[in-house]
């Protein structure tokens, strides 16, 4: 496989509703930003591109089948190769990896990946119904299908197995909303306290409205290229491209029905040992895995991506993570899946300084005074909880923020430098579909490596 680079990205403004534009024009908003960032006009990049990949999650939300080709057409990328990518909440992450495959395989030299979702076309509760149709319509949905309920059941079990507290979850909400305060792309920019999160209306016990991401309209675009593709872009623009190398790709899966998750052994990371998950502190003398407290797909995706990128101890070797925090609880579960801490330590990790940005004051003494603050910032952008979650765009949004971090261009694109991770050399992005059915992990590195 050949080296693949992300050369630029763009994000539309995410909002509760964007009636000002159709989904095609939202895609153009993100795509043209990414192209202009390369110093090119859209027509020129379209000439150079060998094809594209378009992602959106729901035909129900779009109320339009084949919306992928309609976006490709509007962007001006017909009649070149293309296809639509879909995989629930991981749609955007899968789209990025499909573009990577196009380049890595030698099939293409330049390939844009563009994703969108327009969720405002129905009310929130109908939207929840649509999303719940991405659970088994024979055995899950009719019982009271509601994704927030599914994740709530997962975290209740996490609390039982590991002693995770609702306040740990609230730390994630405070962190991500505060980070987003410095991100003008974000849908929600709020300074919150633990109490605010816990006092918000209960949605699915113990998850409150501030533990859960919101519905959004938006689009995001990432442009990927081979060495040869980068040269073509540089030749056309007369400018040097600040390349971000894709050094690791991983994907995992699990059963759609959350009840169908078995209870077996933990697939270990290099820095873990079998003995870590055996002993009296576990119910029945060993950790039964994944059960419904953990995402086996997230662990599998991480293991693959880390092996490819040569990562042995993720907390020590990754500078920041943009992960799929549709729920504060799933961010905590994902810390463990990604090996930022061991299984069972996610709650404590959330309430420590480690996943916070070092130079932002959060008003949380245990965090702000922690000498380990900023060890590995998680969701410096604000994540899904604060940026919004226009599903087909979300995984690509993470790629764009990660790209800008590694290019050291947060100030340029956000007009504010606050969330720039100093000395960011290697980042991980993580995209996740309903209760962990599809999970992608992608490792991105600045030129020159870590």
């Amino acid at each position, binding site marked *: 496989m050949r080296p693949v680079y992300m050369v630029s990205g763009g994000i539309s403004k995410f909002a509760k509703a964007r009636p000002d534009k159709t989904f095609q024009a939202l895609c153009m908003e993100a795509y043209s930003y990414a192209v202009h960032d390369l110093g090119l006009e859209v027509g020129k990049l379209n000439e150079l591109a060998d094809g594209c990949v378009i992602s959106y999650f729901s035909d129900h939300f779009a109320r339009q089948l084949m919306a992928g080709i309609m976006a490709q057409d509007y962007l001006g990328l017909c009649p070149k190769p293309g296809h639509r990518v879909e995989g629930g909440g991981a749609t955007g992450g899968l789209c990025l990896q499909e573009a990577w495959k196009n380049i890595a395989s030698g099939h293409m030299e330049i390939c844009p990946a563009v994703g969108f979702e327009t969720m405002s076309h129905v*009310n929130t509760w109908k939207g*929840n119904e649509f999303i719940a149709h991405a659970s088994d319509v024979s055995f899950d949905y*009719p019982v009271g299908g509601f994704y*927030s309920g*599914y994740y709530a059941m997962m975290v209740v*079990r996490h609390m039982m197995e590991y002693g995770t507290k609702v306040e740990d979850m609230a730390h994630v909400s405070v962190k991500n909303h505060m980070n987003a305060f410095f991100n003008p792309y974000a849908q929600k920019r709020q300074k919150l306290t633990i109490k605010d999160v816990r006092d918000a209306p209960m949605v699915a016990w113990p998850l409150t409205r501030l533990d859960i991401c919101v519905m959004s309209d938006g689009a995001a675009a990432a442009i990927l290229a081979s060495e040869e593709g980068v040269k073509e872009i540089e030749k056309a623009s007369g400018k040097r491209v600040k390349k971000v190398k894709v050094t690791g790709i991983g994907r995992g899966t699990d059963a759609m029905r959350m009840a169908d*998750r078995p209870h077996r052994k933990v697939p270990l990371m290099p820095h873990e040992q079998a003995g870590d998950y055996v002993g009296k502190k576990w119910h029945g003398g060993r950790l039964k895995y994944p059960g419904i407290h953990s995402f086996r797909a997230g662990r599998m995706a991480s293991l693959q991506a880390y092996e490819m990128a040569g990562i042995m101890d993720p907390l020590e070797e990754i500078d920041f993570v943009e992960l799929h925090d549709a729920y504060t609880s799933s961010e905590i579960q994902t810390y463990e899946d990604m090996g930022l801490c061991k299984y069972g330590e996610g709650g404590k990790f959330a309430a420590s300084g480690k996943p916070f940005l070092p130079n932002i004051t959060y008003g949380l003494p245990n965090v702000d005074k922690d000498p380990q603050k900023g060890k590995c910032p998680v969701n410096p952008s604000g994540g899904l909880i604060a940026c919004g979650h226009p599903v087909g765009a979300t995984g690509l949004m993470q790629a764009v923020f990660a790209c800008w971090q590694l290019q050291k261009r947060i100030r340029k694109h956000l007009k504010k430098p606050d969330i720039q991770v100093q000395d960011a050399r290697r980042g991980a992005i993580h995209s996740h579909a309903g209760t962990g059915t599809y999970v992608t992990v992608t490792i991105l590195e600045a030129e020159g490596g870590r």
Partner: protein
Amino acid sequence: MAPKKEIPMRLPETETATEVYNLPFPQLPKDLGALKGMKPIVVKQPYHIDYIHSYGQDSPWLAALSNGTILGSRCARCKNTYPQPRGHCMDCGDETEWVVLPNRAKVHTFTVCHFGSQEFLPECPFVLAQIEFKGCETLLLARLMGVDPYKPSLKWVGMEVEAKFRRLSKTKPTDVYFVPVGS
């Protein structure tokens, strides 16, 4: 947690609108660029579908529920038993056999839904639970009744529950639900 009574600050947004037969539009301006400043037209598009849904090979599981029995799927090779039906084993791919599951089980985890999908909003708050059967590899998603949704507690996890069956079957997995033993 009791529901908070809040004083409404705004009229609710509804999906009903007045029928409109034409739209205001200026005499065609010389500079058509001005039209780019026009606000979007937003219309209602109804969408209703009746599906002809088959439960296929899982049909006996639903027929059993409507007769007061919970079936499970068992793999003879792997010894896995699945309380949610699956025609083939998740490990070896062998065809599974039907077995009868006990009516007593435990709560593995739960939640109280104070909101939900549109279809279930009128039922809020309701309790969803994953039910754990002795000797089963996986779980069963069901409603838990007979507990106070305003007083949720982690103590509910591990609680012994028993199956109750709807007298009038709806041919849905909610034909079975669970209540604490002895209630």
